[in-house]
């Protein structure tokens, strides 16, 4: 079984993003870029399935600008067999991304597609679900446990009410949540090895994908700030303050 893994490059999760003063965007110049943390988990899971003999090949897929190559090499260094880089200089929206993945699925015929449940830049949480829909295959989002059993998979999902388990026929799409696994660290020799792994580069324009970029962002603003409150000296003062506000009886 072949596994395709969505592997997006985003602003590192430790960066505190700043909005440009004119409201035209966020400041990304010189900001540290990393793999979307959820996508790292998706890749780790794919590698573990391969290690267990349940998959034969792991292919990482990145949609992004030409300078994503170092990022893609990290995915190969983590252990993916090969990579596909769909080059697009402008940011694309989830529906377009799903349509691009669909083109790749037609070509690659994977048994499983793994993605992070959301990318921590646009926080959209859409691409996986849209892709499963276009593909006409099962989806199991927010996975915290994946058990492959022949032509089926049992997936435990983290939902608001607790843990839900679904059984899906393969091929299927699974998006992963934080507690599925802890991604491995990349070792130096693996970075060297990754240099010789195949990386296929496709121009977005050559895929003849119909754009689904229908949303137009007109303004960026920083969030409303909460003002710093007061420090109380002890429990009695805290209780008195809460009573004054009518928050406790």
């Amino acid at each position, binding site marked *: 079984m072949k596994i395709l893994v969505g592997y997006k490059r985003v602003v590192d999760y430790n960066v505190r993003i*700043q909005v440009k003063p004119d409201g035209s965007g966020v400041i990304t110049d010189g900001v540290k870029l990393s793999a979307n943390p959820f996508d790292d988990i998706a890749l780790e899971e794919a590698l573990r399935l391969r290690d267990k003999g349940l998959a034969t090949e792991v292919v990482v897929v990145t949609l992004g600008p030409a300078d994503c190559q170092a990022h893609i090499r990290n995915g190969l260094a983590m252990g993916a067999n090969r990579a596909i880089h769909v080059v697009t200089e402008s940011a694309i929206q989830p529906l377009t991304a799903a349509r691009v993945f669909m083109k790749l699925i037609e070509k690659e015929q994977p048994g499983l597609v793994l993605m992070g449940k959301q990318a921590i830049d646009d*926080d959209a949480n859409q691409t996986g679900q849209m892709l499963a829909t276009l593909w006409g295959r099962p989806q199991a989002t927010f996975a915290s446990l994946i058990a492959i059993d022949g032509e089926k998979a049992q997936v435990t999902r983290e939902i608001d009410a607790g843990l839900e388990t679904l059984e899906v026929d393969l091929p299927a799409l699974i998006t992963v949540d934080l507690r599925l696994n802890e991604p491995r660290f990349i070792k130096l020799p693996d970075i060297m090895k990754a240099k010789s792994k195949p990386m296929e580069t496709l121009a977005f324009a050559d895929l003849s994908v119909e754009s689904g970029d229908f949303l137009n962002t007109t303004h960026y603003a920083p969030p409303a700030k909460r003002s710093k409150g007061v420090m109380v*000296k002890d429990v009695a003062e805290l209780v008195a303050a809460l009573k004054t506000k009518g928050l406790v009886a």
Partner: protein
Amino acid sequence: MSRVLIIAEHLNGQLNSATARCVSCAQALAAESIDILVLSDNADAIAGQAAKISGVSKVLSLSHASNAHPVAQVLAPQIVEVAKAYSHVFGPSTTFGKDLMPCVAALLGVAQVSDVMSVESAHSSKRPIYAGNAIITVDAPADAIVVATVRTASWPAAEMSGSAAVEAVSVSAALPTHTRFVSLQQGKSDRPDLQSASKVISGGRALGSAENFSIIYSLADKIGAAVGASRAAVDAGYVPNELQVGQTGKIIAPELYVAIGISGAIQHLTGIKDAGTIVAINKDAEAPIFEVADFGLVGDLFQIIPELESQL
């Protein structure tokens, strides 16, 4: 004029209050009509609950054996059949809505606006990106159906004093059988629901163990609060993961939020910044949680909590 369809969320025969929050968002559009669609194996009783939400024009009750459990790829084709008569289709930005609504959008061939926190006009709204560190204004095309998830913490639940008509509907869509519900393991709790509670007490890594977390439960029970936790406390195994509050857990807006032994990582603060009053109790006076707290108290939580419980 906007005609809004809202997909109801429910569990064990009970309508989730997220649905009434979506109605508030739809009202902000000055909609011509707001209808609710209930999909279940036996939808009528839930539709009856939804009919009580003020501002609702009509509730569509869609009963089908395949809808016993909400499987996104099963629900989406049914929703799309109904949705074509509407200008907007909303679902809550809960795990239910996040799982489902992009499928609806993809079938309709439209984009989705995730986590609507305010409405500017029928086709323009605001939503957070980068864990809430930036708020963007997004315009959707005026000539296509707007599919959106509603950030429930940003909207009050509409009143429950309505009496909308309930109408049974059926659809002819072929439904897939490739995805099957196996089980739902729910945390058993008589406490208020974390997502809709007016008071929430959360504990962090500083509690140190699952056993020690009992003082959080005890304090919560004293004031009728729901219990939440930081990601660190969940990852350490002190509490089950459905209690996690933050960017990747639950986004909540209680009237009172008490953070105990939580330092206040940006990902946690994202989940609570719409709370009415935030109280922080932490032994580290420099903890970032104090930057957003209305009331801060520095000290040892193992002394403060029992004292607080006895004085409340």
